[in-house]
Structures are given as structure tokens and as C-alpha cells.
């Protein structure tokens, strides 16, 4: 057993960057290679996606969206991970990765059409290298591994980021994907956003051991890090992606964070989780914490903070205006329009039948 641990550890460029508790070391923090503008950009993106997230929840409460799943509190992971990747690297998200998609450059108003029932696939995955949101739990993990295997067969240098929550690690799909990734040394960075709650089931009731340590059983390294430190997440994903790009295979990062909002707009967390828990995590808010650090380093001042808040406010208003002005597509186009590039005859007949069934209704 000890041998296995040693072999894996020798192959682990992340271990040296973090303290045993998962905190980015001061030395690693000073060698990130990010200039002041890049450090400010991380802050700006976190503020932008949090404000957009709040606006999406408002829109749901106003009957403009059918459903919304907030990612409040997880902004450091969204922004840190996306900033660490190249634009050509692929992302296979779960359903809470709206912030990641925004950082990748996808129009947030377009994205929300999914939750408004206007579209089944609002963006072209190939244009943004960003797969559709996966609503079923953990189904995107084998997709990511399979896609990464394809990248290797084509001799590409893309890395695939597979992101999921703590609950997903209880699924069979997750195990199968991890096993394949280990056996075939696929270029995948597995990023677990451990936010402690799988809807109303706490981590303690469905996971007995460490999530990060499970990677050893699949033959690759894993690490548990502070997911509320945007620089820590950036450093971890960058190092794991480099390693994967060099052909050294997958890596599992367990980023510890907290779902500060409800599971979705249909959920009431006050029914199952103690208020004291939220209070404790409020004190670790990723944005407030990073802002304090930037101020201490003299990288950001009050004027910049206010300007960024204003920009986030207008971006949210613009998102609302664009979304609510969007026309409803004809139902036939919405349902059948983006399934095949060359639709087979039977599929076209089905569409015709569907469209004629709507006439007169």
C-alpha cells in the first residue's frame, strides 16, 4: 500500500504547491505568473458572475425562467478553473456551471434561454469548447473521459475539464469514468466542487471517506484544496492541466466550497440545514476574501471595486433586457431544429407530424 502512495506522489506536481490542509503556499502564490491586470480580472469575473446569478434568480421569481440553480459561494472555482485553461480546452459541466460558461465568453442571455424553455442547446459546443449543461447527475463525467480519449487518438493537445459535485461521486457513472480515465491515461482534469450538500443530503450522510483520496484507487493522484481561494483553484487546475497535456494522465482536484444558496429555486434549504453553517461559510466568502487580499497587496482600490460593481450591475440589466426581448421560436424549430445536421427522413416526418398536430390549437 505504501508503495502505491509513493509512486503516485512522485508523479504529483500539485502536492508541493499546497499545505497539507489544502491551502496554496505563500511561495506558490508568489509564482503564479499573473500580473496585476490578470489578478484584477479574476476579481472582476467573480463579481460579474455573482451578479448575473442573482439576476437569474430574480428572473425566476418573476416568472421569466422556469428554474434556476444558484452557484452563490462557488465563484472562486468557476473563475479560477476557467482562467487556468486554454480557450481550446474542453469543459464538460454539470448544471451549475453558468459562471464557467460566462468566463468562457458565452452570452449569458443566450444561456438563460435554456431555463426559459426557448432552446434545448443555446450555444454551439464546438465554437466554445463547452459541452451542454448536464442536468442528470454525473452523466457528463464519462462523456468528458470519452471525449478526452478521442482527443488523444487525434493527437491533439486539448485538455478536458470534467466538473461535478460531491453528490456525483456516489454515482456509478462517476466510478466508471474514473476507472477508464486511469486505465487509458486520458488528459482529463476532474474537478469536484464539494459544496457539502447534494440537494438536502449532507456530505456526511453519503460519503464515508475522502473524495480526493479515491483517485489513488484509480491509479492517478488527487488532492483536496480550499475551493474558496481563487488563486489556489487557478494554480491547481493550471498544474493538473499542464500535467495532462504532457501525457501524464488524469488528476482529481477536490475543491472544498459551500453552496450558499438553495439547491435550486424550487428548494428551501432552511428546512434541512442549520443557519449556523451558512453563517460560518459567509465568513469565508470567496469574493470578500480575495478583495481583501487584493487591497492588502495594493492591486485594487475602492474606485476600481465600485467601477466593477457598476459594470456588473449594467451587465445584469443588459442580460435581463436581452432575454425578455427574445422571441419565442416556433415549437417545431425549438424541439427538432438542432438535433441533426442532416436529418433522416423519419425524423423530418416526425417533425411534420408534430407541427401539423399544433395547427388549430
Amino acid at each position, binding site marked *: 500500500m505504501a508503495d502505491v502512495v509513493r509512486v503516485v506522489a512522485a508523479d504529483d506536481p500539485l502536492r508541493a504547491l499546497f499545505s497539507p490542509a489544502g491551502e496554496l503556499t505563500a511561495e506558490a502564490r508568489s509564482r503564479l505568473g499573473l500580473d496585476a491586470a490578470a489578478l484584477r480580472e479574476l476579481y472582476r469575473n467573480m463579481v460579474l458572475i455573482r451578479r448575473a446569478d442573482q*439576476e437569474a434568480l*430574480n428572473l*425566476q*421569481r*418573476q*416568472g*421569466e*425562467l*422556469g*428554474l434556476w440553480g444558484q452557484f452563490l459561494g462557488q465563484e472562486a472555482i468557476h473563475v479560477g478553473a476557467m482562467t487556468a485553461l486554454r480557450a481550446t480546452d474542453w469543459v464538460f459541466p454539470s448544471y451549475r456551471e453558468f459562471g464557467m460558461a460566462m468566463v468562457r465568453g458565452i452570452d449569458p442571455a443566450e444561456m438563460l434561454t435554456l431555463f*426559459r*424553455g426557448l432552446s434545448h442547446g443555446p450555444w454551439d459546443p464546438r465554437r466554445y469548447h463547452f459541452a451542454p449543461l448536464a442536468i442528470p447527475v454525473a452523466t457528463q463525467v464519462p462523456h468528458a473521459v470519452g471525449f478526452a480519449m478521442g482527443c488523444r487518438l487525434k493527437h491533439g493537445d486539448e485538455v478536458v475539464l470534467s466538473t461535478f459535485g460531491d453528490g456525483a461521486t456516489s454515482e456509478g457513472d462517476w466510478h466508471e469514468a474514473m476507472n477508464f480515465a486511469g486505465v487509458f491515461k486520458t488528459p482529463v482534469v476532474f474537478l469536484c466542487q464539494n459544496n457539502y450538500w447534494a440537494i438536502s443530503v449532507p456530505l456526511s450522510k453519503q460519503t464515508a471517506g475522502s473524495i480526493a483520496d479515491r483517485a489513488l484507487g484509480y491509479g492517478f493522484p488527487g488532492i483536496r484544496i480550499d475551493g474558496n481561494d481563487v488563486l489556489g483553484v487557478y494554480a491547481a487546475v493550471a498544474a493538473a492541466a499542464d500535467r495532462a497535456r504532457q501525457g501524464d494522465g488524469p488528476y482529481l482536484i477536490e475543491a472544498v466550497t459551500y453552496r450558499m444558496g*438553495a439547491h435550486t*429555486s*424550487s*428548494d*428551501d434549504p*432552511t*428546512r434541512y440545514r442549520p*443557519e*449556523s453553517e451558512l*453563517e460560518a461559510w459567509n465568513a469565508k466568502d470567496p469574493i470578500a476574501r480575495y478583495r481583501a487580499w487584493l487591497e492588502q497587496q495594493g492591486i485594487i482600490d475602492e474606485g476600481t471595486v465600485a467601477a466593477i460593481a457598476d459594470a456588473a450591475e449594467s451587465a445584469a*440589466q443588459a442580460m*435581463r433586457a436581452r432575454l*425578455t426581448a427574445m422571441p419565442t421560436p416556433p415549437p417545431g424549430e425549438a424541439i427538432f431544429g438542432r438535433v441533426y445536421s442532416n436529418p433522416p427522413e423519419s425524423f423530418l416526418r416526425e417533425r411534420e407530424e408534430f407541427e401539423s398536430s399544433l395547427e388549430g390549437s
Partner: protein
Amino acid sequence: MADQTFRLPDLGEGLTEAQLVAWRVEEGGRVDVNTPLCEVETAKAVVVIPSPWAGTIHKLHARPGASVAVGEPLVTITAAEATQAEATPGTLVGYGPGAPESGIRRKARTAPAVTESSGDVRAAPFVRQLAKDMGVDLTQLTGSGPGGRITRADVEAAAASPAAASSLAAASSPTTAAPSTDGERRISVVGIRKAIARQMVRSVSTIPQFTEFAVFDATNLMAAREEGKASGRSMTPLPYFIAAVVKAVRAYPLMNSSWDESRDEIIVKQPVNVGIAVNTSQGLLVPVLRGADQLELTAIAEKSAKLIEGARAGTLLPGEMSGGTITVTNVGASGPVETGTPIINPPECCVVAFGAIKPRPMVVQGQVVARSGAWISISVDHRIVDGALATEFLTALVSELESISA
């Protein structure tokens, strides 16, 4: 300047109605986009609805406590600017007006219920578990859900009705009364009433509690009050009660603890956060005096007075009504009540009730004399504390109260 009516949207994937808990705005008031309009409670959650438009509140269409169907008008807003009138007319998503009861799915759900035998209970597994936990017999209930299904609210209402007369829970004013054909009135249970009901059911159905009584001699307490009054700081007996409870807790820390059911452990709490039972127009509220063990008597007096005032005015924040570790209730404050059997405020271990201080015959050095005195009763969680320890705590409390000096 066009009027736009905002209709209740489907807030949670297939809901058909919501209950209005409270308005956050008034008719004639101005709102911006996203200004909180009201709180509603659906079958799934209590949610705040933000305004979809900027403008002036022209009309509120529902009263607190009323049920509003999805698609029914909630509020009419006079738009602030001409551009606002272009905003979308609400309820783009969900069932909307006219949709209920027409869908195939709905029919399939309702039809079998009619033919079902009375012994066949329709309830979701978590509702069955809840009923089991609360000791409610599902076969005795009539379900209010789709197809006669028994809901969580049905079970909670059934469990709450016998506990409604508890000494801790004050009577509430009815929020709304639906008309009924046979002279009965049905009162919607929302907001604070509902919270009290849940908390009390949780207490009596999960905590084996017993009560002990004692009488204390309040001569010194009254003398200290008189002396305080003379030097310009008037004080009710409550701060003295709180200070004495804190001192007695310091000697018996187990009284300031919680039973952790999930781990079979007792959590002994560090700060003493004293909950103060306050009767308000909305019902019983329990603001919490945090860190009472770090406060002098005058600070206890000032802070508790502020909390009580805030509770009555409805201005307390949720954080000021949570985190209590022991509760004090003054049952003698507003009537000739000598004492009572208070119900523990979960997850606490102990609640202390003080009766009215008044002159009563006491035996002092073999002679019957008139002295000021009052009853104290404590209810404690028997899983944590046995009778012997409760008696020691009560003895310490009496001794603290009797040895008060100015």
C-alpha cells in the same frame, strides 16, 4: 404611465398556488426593478418575489394569509417610464390562468382517488415518515393535496392542534378566515403561527421533558429594585431573573446544552445565549440575548429591553431570534398566573418560567410573615438531565435570587 399587473408565477416546477405571507411594499409606494415585493410560501419553500418593473404600487391584490393561484393577479404597478411598459407581461412560464385541471397528467392523478377505498392512504413516503415521527394517524386525515393526497401541511396541522394550548405558545390573531357553510371557521396557518406550531410539535414529540417547581423569597430582589429606582435606574424583575439563571447555569453547565440525536452526543454550549419569550401581536417570539454570561446586570437590562421592543415592533433580524441556548419566560408578567409547565424551545435543554411576584405568607424563623415571593418552574430534557440534577440547579437558582444585593 400604463398599469401592469404582475400575476403569481409558478415558482417551483409545477406548483399551482402559493400562500401570501407578507407584503414588503404598500399601495402608493415606489419600487425599482428587483425591489422585494412580498414573501410567499409554496408547497416547497418560502420565497421573496422581487418586482419585475419600476413604478408605483397601484394595487395589492391579496391579503397576507390568502392563497393565490398561479396566474392570479398579485400586484398592479403603474410604470415609472414609458419604456417600462414594454416589459413582458409576467407569467411566461408555468401553468397560468385557465390551465389548471385541463392537463392529461392531472386527470390521471385525480381520477383514481375518487374510487379509492377509505382505508387506502395516499401520501408520499416522507409524509408517512413525518406522520410516524409526529404520532399522527394518516387514516384519520383528509388530504388537501391533488387527488386527496395527504400533504406535509395536513400532518403538521393535525399534530399541532392538540399542542395549541401550550403555556409557551401565545394565542395568535387570526390572519384570515375562509367562509364555511356550517358555522366553522378555517384559519390559515402561516408565518409565525406556523413556526411556533412546528417548534412546539418538535419539542413535545422529540423531547421527554419534566417540570419542577419552587417558590423563592423575592424580598432582596424587590429591595434591590427599589434602590435602583431611587438612584434613577428603573428595572423590571426580568434582568434579575436572567442574571440569576446565567449564574446558576455557570454552576450547572449541562443546563445549557443540546441533545444531538444524529450522533447520540450531548453538546454543552459555551456562551449562554438567553432566549426571552415575548408575547407580540403576531404571536410568541423568542429574541435571543447573546453572550449573557459576559454581561453586567445593567447591560442585560438594556439589551433585553431593546430585544423585547424589537420583537413587539417586528424589527428584529432573523439572527436576533436564533442561536438561543436556554429560554426564560415570565408567565406572571401580565396576569395573576402563579406558574406553569413551560415547553422546551428545541434544541435547548431547559426553559425557566417565572410567576408573578407578590406578597405571600412565608415562614421565617418559625413565624408566618408576609414576604414578596414568586414561583419558578423549570422544564428540562430528561435525556440530558435527571431529577436530582434539575433539583440542584433549581436550588442554585433560588439561592441566587434570594441573595441578590443592591
